[in-house]
């Protein structure tokens, strides 16, 4: 679709405008990694276990490094909040009267943002990964490249759909910023961002690893970390695909139902 191609190009240009801001935030993004390395080094040194949550110290640091890659695909800052804002303030009007689908419009916006991010962040990422190369497991085997890449692309779609679905709640609840915070906190933990989900006690782990959050970050990371065999890799891709179709359905239905309730507040 030509019009979405233009959306993509304009968003691309917009992203290059605020370069200083970009470099500052990319740099800041890596600061938690330093804490991670320091903390886990102390944790492994403080006990006798070589394996924690089935991971060695090197694995653990790599895990958090690769989380950065998975998050670069899956994180959608401001998407849910932006949709909530557009609904509450009546900004949605201008999309309804245009021949543009809001969800697909934002999908292209995000693809543009991510493209710029990948181009601009390659150098800082490469520096950090090179610096930490001692911890990393090495490149994945050639047969794993396709599932690895797919899992990251799927992580992008999962992140997009999860956030969209959250934002759609605004059609039903007027004030959702606090829900957003609960959502962000839960996502931070349930996706394996704070610690590898393999560290959870067995019962809890069973539940958490079935949720879409785990498929957004935890599974792609384990895959890139080389912790999965070929069959496991494709099971992960399948799981992601199932969650993507489910959430796409939820967003489509939620969008249609929501629009019916939409009152276009504001002048």
């Amino acid at each position, binding site marked *: 679709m030509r019009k979405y191609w233009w959306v993509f190009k304009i968003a691309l240009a917009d992203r290059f405008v605020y370069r200083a801001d970009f470099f*500052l935030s990319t740099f*800041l993004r890596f*600061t938690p990694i330093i804490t991670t390395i320091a903390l886990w080094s102390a944790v492994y040194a403080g*006990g006798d276990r070589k394996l924690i949550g089935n991971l060695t110290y090197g694995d653990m640091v790599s895990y958090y490094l690769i989380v950065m890659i998975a998050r670069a695909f899956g994180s959608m800052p401001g998407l849910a909040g932006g949709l909530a804002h557009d609904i509450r303030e009546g900004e949605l009007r201008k999309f309804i009267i245009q021949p543009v689908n809001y969800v697909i419009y934002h999908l292209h916006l995000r693809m543009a943002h991510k493209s710029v991010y990948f181009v601009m962040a390659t150098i800082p990422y490469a520096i950090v990964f090179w610096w930490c190369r001692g911890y990393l497991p090495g490149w994945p085997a050639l047969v794993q490249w396709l599932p690895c890449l797919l899992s990251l692309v799927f992580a992008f779609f999962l992140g997009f759909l999860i956030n969209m679905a959250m934002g759609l709640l605004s059609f039903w609840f007027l004030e959702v910023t606090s829900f957003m915070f*609960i959502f962000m*906190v839960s996502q931070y933990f349930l996706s394996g961002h704070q610690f590898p989900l393999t560290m959870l006690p067995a019962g809890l782990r069973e539940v958490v690893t079935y949720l879409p959050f785990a498929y957004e970050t935890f599974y792609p990371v384990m895959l890139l970390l080389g912790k999965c065999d070929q069959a496991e890799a494709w099971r992960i891709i399948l799981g992601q695909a199932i969650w993507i179709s489910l959430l796409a359905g939820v967003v489509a239905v939620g969008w249609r139902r929501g629009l019916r309730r939409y009152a276009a507040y504001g002048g």
Partner: protein
Amino acid sequence: MIRHLRIGMLFARNGLVRELSFRTNFIVTVISEMLWLAMMLIFVEIIFANTRSVSGWNNYQYLFLLGTHFLISSLFETFFFSNLQRLSELIRTGGLDFVLLKPAQPQFLLSFERVDYAALANAPLGVFLCGFAVYRLGSPVSVVDVLLFAVLVISGVLTLYGLMFIFSTSSVWLIRQTSASHFWFYLTSCARYPAEIYQPLVRGVLWFVLTFVIPVLIVANLPANAVVRGGAFQPWLVGYALAAAVIILAVSAVVFRWALRSYRSASS
């Protein structure tokens, strides 16, 4: 001075009125803050299920550190966070004009206008966590310890305020700055751990910078050391922490005046 105190009281009352008119929001915010605390506690439990100590901190000393961190950041978020978040926005949109026109000290107005009572919920939880840790550690705590703790907590809040104020003010030069809340997130995710974990990194340079240049590591660590880790506590650091708070506050005032010279009052 008296006038500013009265304005401050007015801000505090306004905040309460605002908070009480959105009661559901208040309750949900409190719940989400508690959720965050619960998640952090689970993380600590998971760590200590796998190790005995983290850089010389045992389970309950670590809990005390976490409680201290929650107390300090809750106080900061209650009084300053939404104000400083708004500051970047005011600079970007030119809304700062209306603050500068008012017949009161602008840094005062910018820093105190909003009080976020919902964020205060974590303060008693932090204190409770500290109390629980002290109880489990079984070591005696004197009145002097408690007073010292209180003084260090306040100086920690002011240190964080100074750092965040300088950061928010910098949006004058960086124009669009969406990262004030991110900066806070990174600052706290670095400061809520034992300072000693940073010592082995890059020959201690990082630890030195985070202790003496951008002193975030003393904020929660020092009060925790003072109360539950007598062996690791260095009394001279108390003088240093207080001096650091004063210096950072002074620097923040200087940077603000300096930034105003570059402020472009952009508006539509």
